[in-house]
């Protein structure tokens, strides 16, 4: 199995990447670790004319703390987070989620940014970063803009990047010290893509109780106030129950009737983790 022919370019700077992408006018594809794109290329599902390697751009493998958040370079890998090589204080959920993604051999090359840009609805980072209210830092080589992650992904395998833009980093606002995040996914086999997933952020101090349902048919479903689908008082050590009627209605609206039990199970378990 061999991909359809493509040209190859390696960008050494954000500006260079933008220039290459602009010249290719839409037929180029950015590659970092290639762990999602690789299978698609091999299966000839993706047939870009040019592949642009961005891993040699120094900014993309940086971890930077700013006042109230942390910026994770787009080319930081899943195992960088799993091992704590990429040090992100106050967000232990990142290492936990990382350890459950695919397999070690894949995590050693697969990047967080690549996973987000690939925008597979069943991917792990998308629901988790939605729960954490992350922002995507997007650049076209000169202009930088921040886009809320919910706006970054526009549908299944679709993101809002245009022309010469690429994802530079993911910025996560630092949650309060009381905040806890839970994530649960249902898959047929360890390492496979999720059939259903959910992420829950519970922040007693910030009074946040956000739930996200992932592995949908498109964008994840974000419920800003999870009390609308989970009954009971959210508190540390507490327990919440599923509001079957409300959750059922929500899932039906999202046209997810097929595995409803899988989604609600993931939701309840993620919430339990966030309150543990």
């Amino acid at each position, binding site marked *: *199995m*061999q*991909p*359809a*022919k*493509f*040209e*190859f370019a*390696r960008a*050494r700077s954000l500006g260079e990447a933008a220039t290459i992408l602009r010249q290719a006018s839409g037929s180029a594809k950015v*590659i*970092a*670790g*290639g*762990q999602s794109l*690789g*299978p698609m*290329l*091999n*299966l000839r599902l993706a047939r870009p004319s040019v*592949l642009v*390697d961005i*891993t*040699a751009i120094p900014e*993309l*493998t*940086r*971890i930077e703390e700013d006042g109230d958040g942390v910026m994770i*370079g787009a*080319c*930081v*890998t899943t*195992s*960088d987070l799993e*091992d704590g*090589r*990429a040090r992100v204080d106050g967000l232990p959920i990142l290492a936990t989620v990382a350890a459950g993604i*695919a*397999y*070690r*051999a*894949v995590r*050693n*090359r*697969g*990047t967080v940014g690549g996973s987000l840009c690939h925008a597979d609805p069943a991917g792990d980072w998308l629901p988790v970063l939605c729960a954490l209210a992350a922002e995507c830092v997007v650049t076209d080589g000169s202009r930088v803009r921040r886009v809320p992650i919910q706006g970054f992904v526009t549908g299944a395998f679709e993101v809002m990047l245009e022309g010469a833009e690429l994802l530079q980093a993911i910025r996560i606002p630092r949650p309060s010290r009381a905040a806890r995040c839970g994530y649960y996914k249902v898959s047929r*086999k*360890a*390492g496979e893509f999720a059939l259903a997933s959910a992420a829950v952020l519970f922040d007693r101090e910030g009074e946040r109780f956000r739930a996200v349902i992932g592995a949908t048919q498109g964008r994840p479903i974000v419920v800003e106030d999870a009390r609308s689908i989970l009954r009971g008082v959210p508190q540390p050590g507490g327990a919440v129950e599923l509001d079957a009627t409300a959750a059922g209605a929500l899932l039906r609206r999202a046209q997810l009737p097929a595995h409803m039990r899988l989604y609600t199970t993931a939701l309840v378990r993620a919430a339990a983790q966030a309150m543990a």
Partner: protein
Amino acid sequence: MRSVELTVNGVAVVEAVEPRLHLADLLRERLGLTGTHLRCEQGACGACTLLIDGEPARACITYAVLCEGAQITTIEGLEDDPIMVALRRAFTAEHGLQCGFCTPGMLITARDIVRRLPGADERRIRLELSGNLCRCTGYVGIVRAIRRVLQEVRSGALAAAASERRKLGPVGSGRAGPAPGGLSVSPAAAAGGDKRGAIADADLGLAGRKPNIEIHQSLVIARPQAEVWTFLGDVERVVPCMPGATLSAVRGDRLQGGLAIKLGPIVAAFDGEARVVRDDAMQRGMILGAGRDRLGASRASGELEYRLSAVQGGAATRLDITVRALLLGPLAQFGRSAIVTDLAARISEVFARNLERRLAGLPDATQQKAIPAASLLGAVIAERIKNALARLLEKFRR
């Protein structure tokens, strides 16, 4: 085509590749390293798992061009690795394989478990193995084998140092590589398939195998660098500088020819093929060759790498040559001794002198068809007889 330079099992490899060529195909088809198996080619089955920069990764979804400057270690390169030695022993003892198809990938993952998770229990081992599919033995024997080795680590009988990786980003990637430009590959090489001659591309050069001959030489040629570079690109002028060498055909980047060697009573006449790769930007060239002795049963394959640099303010050129070769068959018994190394050194000395003379428009210094090395041989044989006698005496003393 694009030039990619990487290290495979400790050996530097420069290859002209199509961007779509994945690592597993490069290793298997070009370098003859078939220990890396291929099945799903979509990153799911784990058969192609190998080490990139020391960490496990999938070869089938990692394109060679993404690995500029990377260290690739295949199952062949872990022959003497202490953890791998212990794992192989344990896989045998615990019946950890049957057909063997998944085994190379399984062993790479097992080694990663041993290094990264020395405290792993059965559940964790099974979780970590979820990315390597086995279709015949099942996992019971494999899990037992890994547990056995973990036990050795915990008891202190086996050392297993954890990874020291600090760099962030995909393993193997992130190096900017040489400036754009790179290899000038002849149109024939770009268009042609892998089998343009009698010898497949995969059999030319070392293909990741360990050489048993390694020679480094530096020569200074009293001509400017540009002149030497151009001359070296013209094989029909270069080959005659080599004592004993003949060129019979040139097709694109492929050469056919012979090399006659006379070493006292030993005569060899190698017929072979070679492929030439030149990198204008880096002023570096590589000749990958393989041949067979027409007179005996010896076989040789090897790589000659040369780099040019200006010396004496540009008036002269330094030519650094590295030859790594693997000699098999009857002649190989001399492979590790000084005999071949010295002979090769003499050949290249004559080569450099001829090169210089040709550049200056003079006739060759020597017109020898083969290098007579009787005196050299005499010295080496005397040494060998002494060694053999010493060994014999040692046996008697026991």
